[in-house]
């Protein structure tokens, strides 16, 4: 299983978290206290088809854009204010240290199952940096801002303690 956390911007409030747990095509989305379970399949043409337990089927194309996530259903676009990283307007970017350097630390004891970047690599905002497996869950750790990886002190397969330093990113424009 793999868990991702997404953020949904609320007009005039803190962004709400959208937690997605995936097991293959199986998808569980939790937000604002309610939960949806469905099968999500990526179609050959790049659209997604969601199939709910009552048989309801919804298909559409999803595009990430600077202004938000564009969702086309029956050809018609709508914009969902969703982002992979916590929206910067909330200025709560977890782990942000001084001097425009973001330090990423392990949230709990676990095993690093994937490392996507090395020191010197550029990362885009929202990029998947690491996957930390803990209690049989794969937790994605993403960049909240774009920048360059300054240090990376873990490698795949390594076990880390909660709070351990994993990597740091020097942000752009700082």
């Amino acid at each position: 299983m793999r868990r991702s956390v997404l953020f949904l911007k609320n007009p005039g409030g803190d962004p709400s978290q959208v937690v997605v747990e995936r097991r293959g095509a199986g998808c569980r989305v939790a937000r604002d206290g309610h939960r949806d379970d469905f099968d999500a399949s990526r179609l050959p043409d790049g659209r997604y088809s969601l199939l709910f337990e009552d048989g309801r089927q919804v298909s559409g194309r999803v595009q990430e854009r600077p202004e938000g996530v564009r969702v086309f259903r029956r050809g018609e676009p709508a914009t969902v204010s969703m982002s992979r990283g916590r929206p910067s307007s909330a200025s709560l970017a977890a782990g942000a240290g001084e001097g425009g350097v973001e330090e990423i630390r392990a949230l709990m004891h676990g095993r690093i199952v994937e490392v996507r970047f090395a020191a010197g690599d550029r990362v885009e905002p929202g990029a998947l940096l690491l996957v930390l497996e803990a209690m049989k869950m794969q937790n994605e750790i993403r960049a909240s801002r774009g920048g360059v990886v300054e240090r990376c002190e873990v490698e795949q397969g390594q076990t880390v303690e909660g709070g351990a330093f994993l990597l740091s990113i020097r942000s752009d424009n700082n």
Partner: protein
Amino acid sequence: MGIETVAVFSDADRKAPHVAAADYAVRLGPPPARESYLSVAAILEAARKTKATLIHPGYGFLAENAAFARACSDAGLTFVGPPADAIEAMGSKTGSRKMMEAAGVPIVPGLTRPASTAAELKEFGRKAGYPILLKAAAGGGGKGMRRVDSEKEIEAAFARASSEAMAFFNDGAVYAEKLVEGPRHVEVQVIADRHGNRLAVGERECSLQRRHQKVVEECPSPVVGENLRKRICSAALAASAAVNYVSCGTVEFLLSPDGSFYFLEMNTRLQVEHPVTEEVYGVDLASEMIAIALGEPLSWKAEDLRPRGHAIECRIYAEDPSRDFAPSPGTIESLRLPAGPGVRHDIGVEQGSTVPIDYDPMLGKLVVWGPDRPRAIRRLSRALSEYEVAGVETTLPLFRRLCGDSDFQAGRFDVQWLERRLASALLESREPSDEDVLLAAAALSDETAPRGSTPAEPPASPWRRRARLESLRGAER
């Protein structure tokens, strides 16, 4: 029509276009049709789950299954098709022949009940004259058919036809009929409602066949004039009335070169080739069929049905014509469809689609309309020159050759013509020219291009491939 739709699918089709286009979708079972699309129980359960009220059986699988039609009614569902009794009556070759004879519809001289011994066949052969044709009584689609040219072939032919019939239909009964030489396959579209209205919507020419499967269909037939059209349409109406037929259906005839015609069978469903009739008559048969099922009267009167121009349909299969039409499963790496006036597509795949090996390899249908047959052929030829499918082999080259064939252009063919032409040089594949070499050289020296073919998506990384496999396993839970 403002109706919400429920798609059913097997595991092979979770990502198929018909699923993504539906408001509801229900998994039936694993890919083998027996465990999914032929499972009456699974389909009725899907209807129950989604509170469906109408069931449309499509073209294949259970479309001509009387037991399924009955099971639908029993479950309180409206079956979009004819009454189960009509399906049943037309489902038996010998039974339907008897009914047609009684209704005054001409039939090919033949046995009125299945033969159980070779001796009965010999007697018939002597009376009717050779060649004769042996057929599985429960059959269809050419399976279990066998030509017999003289009495000394009877014993062996009967044994083989009977065992084939047993293998395909679990019923070894065989009957025999006179073989009409050089015939065409001409069929009449019929629509009838529950209020006693019954119309014939002209004929279709379906003589271009390979292994008894239609390949190209036209409307109208190039050899049917006003007078013959009237006669063959009345025969079709009589045939459908004899079984109290309601819904869309097709009465198939064998048309002899001398203008006489004989009832072959009635297809109790909407057929793959219905678009050519729609284009020429301006009717929407699929909608009409649903309206009829809902109890509405026909939306057309006989005098409003005025044919205009000529339509041709090509069935595009994922088969390699240069290798005896071997199936060519794979992924559609690129798909370019022609557009413009008089060009219509009914297509079930798109770029990136996988052509599965489990079902019928038909990719889609190209239908063109023109003010007359020569102009329809010109338009077809133009459309085919713009139609490009890469990734799997298709039957498109066959249609391109046909457009340039003088017999086809003149409408000079019978049901065996295509097979004879295929045995000759019709399908030699195109020799590479200088221009092909230059195109290849330009592409292979182009470092700005992605390497090799152009798939719909960038090739999967090993990591992504693993995740995809995982998600496939997930779908099988």
